[in-house]
C-alpha cells in the first residue's frame, strides 16, 4: 500500500471540507431571498456533468495499470458501465455490470 504525505492529505481534507461547506452555504446563508442571475445558474448546472467525464476519459483510453497501453478488458468494462447507466439510469446496476465485465474478461484473457 502506498503512503500519502499526511500534510498533503490533511490539506486536501480540510480544504475540501471548508470549500464544500462554503459552496453549500453561500446562497442559502448569504444571499437569502434575493434572485440569482440566470447565466450563473445555467453554468452551474453543467459543471458536474463536464468535469466527471473529463476526469475519466484519459483513464479509459490510457489506463495507468497497463502503463498507458489501451487495454481490451478495461475498455469493454467502461463501455458496459456507461451503456448500462445510460439505459437503466441505475448507478448501482451500471457499477456491477461494469465490474463483472472487467473481472470476467481479465479472467478469460489473463
Amino acid at each position: 500500500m502506498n503512503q500519502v504525505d499526511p500534510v498533503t492529505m490533511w490539506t486536501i481534507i480540510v480544504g475540501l471540507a471548508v470549500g464544500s461547506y462554503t459552496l453549500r452555504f453561500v446562497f442559502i446563508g448569504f444571499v437569502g431571498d434575493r434572485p440569482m442571475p440566470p447565466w450563473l445558474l445555467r453554468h452551474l448546472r453543467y459543471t458536474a456533468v463536464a468535469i466527471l467525464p473529463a476526469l475519466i476519459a484519459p483513464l479509459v483510453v490510457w489506463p495507468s495499470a497497463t502503463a498507458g497501453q489501451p487495454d481490451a478488458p478495461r475498455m469493454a468494462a467502461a463501455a458496459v458501465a456507461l451503456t448500462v447507466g445510460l439505459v437503466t439510469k441505475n448507478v448501482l446496476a451500471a457499477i456491477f455490470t461494469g465490474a463483472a465485465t472487467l473481472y470476467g474478461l481479465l479472467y478469460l484473457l489473463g
Partner: protein
Amino acid sequence: MAFTTSKSYFWKGFRDGTPFIFVAIPFGTLFGVFATEAGLNIVQTMAFTATVFAGAAQFAALQLLQENTPTAIILVSALAVNLRMAMYSASLTPYLGAAPMWQRAIAAYLTVDQSYACSIVQFEKEPDLTIPQRMAYFFGSVAPITPLWILATYMGAVLGTRIPESWALDFALPITFLAMIGPMMRTLPHVVAAMVAIVVSLLTVAIPYNLGLLIAGCAGMMAGAQAELMMERRKANA
C-alpha cells in the same frame, strides 16, 4: 391529508429519503475501500467522509491523488465537481431562506443530491407549506442516509486493508464514475457538455499538473450552457 405539524413532515421526508440508503451504503463502502487503497488511514478516511460529505467529489480527489496531482489542482477539481451544491443551495433559498440562521447553517451541511431531489419536488408540489414544515421535511429526507453513509465508509475502510492488490481496483474507480455519468445525461445540453469535456480532456492530456482537466471542465460547462441557450431560442422561435 393530515400532515399539519412539523413532526409529521419530518417523517414524511424520512420515508421519501429511505430508498436512498441502497445507494448510500454501497457508495460509502466503496469510498472506504478506495480511500484505504489510496493510502489514507482510518482517521483521515473518516474525517474526509464526515466533513466533505459528497461522494463524487471525494472519489475525484482520491483519483487525482493517485495520479500525483498538485494539491491546488486536486482542490479546485474536486470543488468543481461540488459546484452543483451551490446550485442546490441557490434553488432551495426561496423556500428555506427565511428560516433561522442556525437551521440554515445545518441545512447547508446536509445539502446533498438526495435531500435536494426529495425536497425540491415536495416544495413545488405543496407551495403552501410553512418554513418549519419545509425544514422538517428537508432534515427528514437526509436522516436515513447520513449515519449509514458514515458507518458504511468505516466498514469499507476496515475491509479495504484486507483486499489483495491483484484485484485490479485501479479501474474500479473509473467504472464507478462512468456509472454515475449515464444517469446524468438527462437533456441534450448535458450530453453536449459531457462530449465537449471528453474531447478536450483527451486533447489536453499532455498539459502538466492535470490542468487539462480544468480546461476540459470549463469547456464542457460553457458548451452545455450555450446548448441550453440555443435550444431555448429555437423553442421561442418555433
